[in-house]
Each structure stands twice: as C-alpha cells, then as structure tokens.
C-alpha cells in the first residue's frame, strides 16, 4: 500500500511492528473529515461568532490530525517526522484556545473580550516562540524513529492546556449559575460536557504517553496517543444532540440525518481495513447502497417534518384568528349593549304613552285610532322584549349578569306560572296542565325571577309551536342526583335532528318560525340555557322528529333542605 512512499525501510518495519497503519488512517482521517464537514455546514447556515469558533476548532483539529498522522508515518523520512512533530503541540494549544473561545461565545453570544484575548495571547506566545526557535525539539532518534522533545516545552504545553480547560470550566460555571431556565442550564451543561470530554481526551492522551515513556517499561507507549482523537466524535455527538433537541446554532437538523452521517462515516472508515480486493468491493457496494437508502430516508423524514411544521404554523395562525374573533365578539357585545341601552329609553316612553292613551288618560280615543294605537303598543312591547334579549346576551357574554340567589319553592313558582299562562293557552285552544310528581315541596337555591323567566320562555315556545293538543308541565325530583326536574312536553310540530343540534345557539330560529312568531330574535333559548347553567342547572331539548312534539327538560340542584 505504501511501497512507493517508503523512504526509510527500517522505520517502516519499526512502525509495522508497533501498530497497524490501517488503524492510524482509521483514527485520523474520517474523524477529521466529519468534523470539518459538520462545522462547515453549521458555518454556512449560520455565519456568526459561535459557528466561526467551531469551524476554527475543527479546522485546527484537522490540521492537528494531519500533522499527527504524518508524524506517525515515520517511513516518510526523519525530516518529515521532525517537521510535523515540532508543530503538533502548538496546534494543540490553538485547539484549546479555540475551544475556550467557542464555549464563551456559545454561552454568552458575544466574542471574547479584549482582556481575555490578551491573557490568552500572553499564555500562547511562549509556546509560539519556543516552536519558532526550534527549542521544543532537541533531535531525532534513528533507533525509535522518533523526535526528542524538550521536557520543559512539553510541561509548558500541559500548563497552557490545563489553563484553558480551567477557563472553560470557570465561564461555564458562571453561565450555569446565571441561567434562568432549565433548557438554558441543560444547553450549558451539554456544551461544556462535550467540550471537556473532547479536550480531556486530547490533553490526557499525550500526558499519559509521556508518563508511560518516562516512568514505566511499557512497550510502544505512543500507541495510546491515537485514542485521544476519539474525543472529537464525542464532541460532535453532543453538538448533534444540542442541535436536534434545542435547535442550537439555529439549525433544524434531524436525528435521521445525524444517524445516516454517522453510519456513512463508519462505513467509510471501514474502507481502511480490507484483506482482499473482493472484500473492498463489497464494502464500497454497501457504502453506495447505504448512501442511496440514507438519502431517501432523510428526504422522506424531511418531508414529514415540513408537513408537521406547516400544520403547526396553520394551528398557530388559527389560534391568532380565534383570538381576534373573540376580541371582535366582545366588541360586538359591547356595541349591542350600548345600542340596546340607547333604544330602551325611547321604547319605554312609547310604551308608557300608548298605555296611557289606551287607558284613557288623555281622554277617550276614537274607534279609528284605537287599532293603530293597539298595534303601536304591541310592537313596542315586542321591541322591548328584543332589546331585553340583546341586553341579556351582552351581559352574559361580558359576565356582568347579576343573579339574586335565594332558596325558593320551585313547586309554587312553576304552579303559579302555569296558572298565569293557562288563559293564553286556552285562547290558543290548547290544554296546559301542571303535574307535581314530587312527594315534598321542591326547594332550590337560584334566582327565582330568572328561573321563572326561563320557564315562561320554554312554555311560551311550546305553546307557540303547538297548533293543537296540549302542553304538559311536570315537576319531579331525582333524589339520587339531588336534582329538581321540570319537563315541558308538547304535542306540537316537533323538531328535526338538525334543528335540535343548533337549538340553543345565538340567533337560531326554526324554519317555520316566521309563520309562528315574526318578532322572535332567536336568542330566547340561548339566554335561557346560559342562565340555567350559571345557576348550576341544565336545559335540554329532545324530539322524536318533525310532527312528533318536543320535550324541554330543565334541571336545577336541590337544596339540602328539600333533599
């Protein structure tokens, strides 16, 4: 594989006896390429200080991996080994500085202050000078094909690296303490952990190697150095998780993309290990198949995510529109309230004067005028009722409806109401009856006036929509549920299922309503139900269909006395 590149056969044999060259390529090349691509994508999509810091780390890491790999390939000649070896520590220090800059900008969204820059430069400068003057390398050992390093230079490198790790932990702790949300703390923790692991691998590997070579008789201690490179995939894993979970770097990467990239990287790395040509072809074919499969998988997941995002956007727009509609509804209610109040005063005056005219307060009126005045009185009465309906709706919707709650006898109220309405029923040719099936007096705690208003509305409706037959009002109690029940059953026109569904809505009127009651607003049942619900009860309607009559059931909670 390397035959044409071998400059020193002795060093080649020495290297092969020490380590598998395939392992060197496996640990150095894919990791560096993935890191570079990953950071380049982030930088391309989001050109800010954080992304540029990450790109700088990955670029320096790639350079470091290149130098390290070349230093390992000792068969390329002593000059090659020395040149690459002499720069490794300096580039390593630059990686540590860039990592600190990245963590700082990631946490605080601003670049390092001038003070931090100056301190960092002051620490790095001696290392640059030592490298520039060639003081970090003292010579070349032809027996081990390695460079001799100046121990003081090496210790200074460890000092600088440890300083930057400490600075990273310091600023991260500061950020973690000042974080306001759990998500912010988690992000801080994840970024710091990933970076610390990456740097610890990079820092500890040469440190351990140095210890092994100085104080133990371990054969080929430098073999352990290559494991320092595995810190980078760990960092990328952490950053990938940050992107997927918290949309860090304003990126919307998805787990599927990261998984496919990781899978492809592993397969590319496998290409460095093959014993026969057919094995290599199988690996290449697998790589191509995985690439194609991965492409379609990612596209499919992306489409689903786009669809989901579109739906979320629509739901959000709908929510905004609903909120706007609610505001408009409130404005409408306010308008109706104001308008109704303005109408009420003149109507009251009209009704008062027409009533006085009919009573003869202004003298006897002629037969010719009697009918028109009666019409005026009747119309103004309906108009007053309509205005009352509008005002009630307005009060219900604004929550300003007042309920004078007190304990009263529902039996007496219902009985008295039925008695009052009986004359009107007889006038229409209907039989209106009241059945009290409760064994005792039914006491409820509610606003008596409003309960009476609701019952009157329901019985009035029943009479209006019953051309012939009867209207039966029944009072009973459900002692198990502690409820009083008033059922109004008529033999009238009945209702279709569609009508029943909308019956308690605002401004809803039956199809035949205009032939029965031209003045109706379609608000009566809406108001009745809202009032009963506000008093802890319910109002329901049922019908077997058109022509089969209707049943309205009003429930109210019983007081402890009656129960």
């Amino acid at each position: 594989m390397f035959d044409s590149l071998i400059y020193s056969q002795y060093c080649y044999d020495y290297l092969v006896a020490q380590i598998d060259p395939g392992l060197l390529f496996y640990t150095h090349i894919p990791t560096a390429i993935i890191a570079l691509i990953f950071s380049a994508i982030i930088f391309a999509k989001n050109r800010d200080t954080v992304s540029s810091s990450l790109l700088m780390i990955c670029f320096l890491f790639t350079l470091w991996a290149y130098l390290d790999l070349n230093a390992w390939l000792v068969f390329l000649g002593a000059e090659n080994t020395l040149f690459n070896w002499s720069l490794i520590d300096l580039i390593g220090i630059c990686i540590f500085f860039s990592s600190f800059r990245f963590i700082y900008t990631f946490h605080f969204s601003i670049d390092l202050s001038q003070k931090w820059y100056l301190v960092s430069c002051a620490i790095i400068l001696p290392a640059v000078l030592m490298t520039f003057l060639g003081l970090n390398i003292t010579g070349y050992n032809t027996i081990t094909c390695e460079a001799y390093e100046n121990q003081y230079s090496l210790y200074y490198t460890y000092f600088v690296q440890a300083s930057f790790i400490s600075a990273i932990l310091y600023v991260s702790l500061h950020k973690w303490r000042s974080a306001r949300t759990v998500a912010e703390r988690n992000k801080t923790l994840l970024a710091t952990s990933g970076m610390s692991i990456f740097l610890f691998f990079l820092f500890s590997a040469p440190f351990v190697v140095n210890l092994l070579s100085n104080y133990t008789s371990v054969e080929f201690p430098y073999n352990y150095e290559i494991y320092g490179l595995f810190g980078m995939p760990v960092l990328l894993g952490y950053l990938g998780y940050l992107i997927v979970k918290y949309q860090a770097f304003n990126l919307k990467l998805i787990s599927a993309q990261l998984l496919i990239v990781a899978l492809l990287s592993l397969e590319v790395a496998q290409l460095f290990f093959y014993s026969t040509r057919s094995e290599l072809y199988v690996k290449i074919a697998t790589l191509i198949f995985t690439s194609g499969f991965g492409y379609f998988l990612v596209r499919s997941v992306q489409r689903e995510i786009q669809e989901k995002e579109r739906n979320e956007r629509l739901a959000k727009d709908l929510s905004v529109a609903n909120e706007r509609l609610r505001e408009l509804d409130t404005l409408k209610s306010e308008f109706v309230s104001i308008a109704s109040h303005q109408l009420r005063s003149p109507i009251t005056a009209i009704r008062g004067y027409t009533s006085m005219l009919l009573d003869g307060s202004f003298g006897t009126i002629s037969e010719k005028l009697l009918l028109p005045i009666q019409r005026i009185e009747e119309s103004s009465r309906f108009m007053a009722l309509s205005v009352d309906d509008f005002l009630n709706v307005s009060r219900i919707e604004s929550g300003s409806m007042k309920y004078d709650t007190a304990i009263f006898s529902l039996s007496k109220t219902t009985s008295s109401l039925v008695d009052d309405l009986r004359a009107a029923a007889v006038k229409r040719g209907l039989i209106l009856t009241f059945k009290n099936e409760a064994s005792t007096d039914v006491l409820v705690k509610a606003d008596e006036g409003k309960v009476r208003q609701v019952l009157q509305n329901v019985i009035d409706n029943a009479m209006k929509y019953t051309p012939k037959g009867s209207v039966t009002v029944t009072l009973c109690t459900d002692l198990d549920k502690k409820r009083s029940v008033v059922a109004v059953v008529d033999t009238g026109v009945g209702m279709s299922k569609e009508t029943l569904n909308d019956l308690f809505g605002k401004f809803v009127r039956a199809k035949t309503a205009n032939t029965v009651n031209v003045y109706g607003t379609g608000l009566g049942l809406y108001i009745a139900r809202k009032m009963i619900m506000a008093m802890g009860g319910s109002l329901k309607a049922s019908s077997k269909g058109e022509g089969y009559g209707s049943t309205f059931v009003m429930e109210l909670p019983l007081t402890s006395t009656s129960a």
Partner: protein
Amino acid sequence: MQSICLIQYRSMKHANYLLLIFAILILVTGLTRYKDYVIARNYVVYTNVPCDTELNNCFQFDCSNLDGDCDESPFTKIEIEASKAPRCLFENDCKTFFCTDESMCTKLECNDDTVEDGELCVS
C-alpha cells in the same frame, strides 16, 4: 463620551487583528521549521553504531532481565548534525562509522556518567 456599542465594536476589531497576527505568527513558525528541518536539515541525529570493544569502552543492552529478543552487540552512541550524517545512519545499518569532523559529530564513550538504565559498559 463613546457609546458602549462603539467601544465593543473597536474591541472586536482589535481582537480580530490579534487573531490575524497570531495566525501569521504560526504560519511563519511553520515555514521556519520547514526551512530548518526539511530544507536545511538543521537538527541533531542521535543514533547507535557498532563498537569494537578492543578499541573503545562500548555500550551494551542489559538483557539479563528481559525475555524475548534482545540485541547484545556492543555499540557507541553518536550525536551528529543531520546534514553531515550518511544515509546508513538513518537506516541503522552502518557497519563502521567514525566521527571525522568533531565539531559536527560527537561520539559518546561508555562510562559511569553516560551509561543509562538497562545498559552496561563493556570493553
């Protein structure tokens, strides 16, 4: 009075200059090392060459505590300027080697001061 934004902006500009200067410094350092090591071959080579025990005090690996392969042939330690070193030194296959130019090459005799752990002096 300068605005905070302006101070921040100028500070960032200084920081960018600093980064640029550092990048240039590192590049220059790299070029210097390349010139020194690759072009001028200006470095010291440490190697071992065969030694005649009848003429010199030679080094020998102490194989008494080692299992497996151990080369017991006597050797002399040489420090030599890379530019003056013959290729056989890099391949560790010089049959005989003498330091002709003392200013460029140093031959280390084995004695109590120069012998290291795992080595013996033989003569």
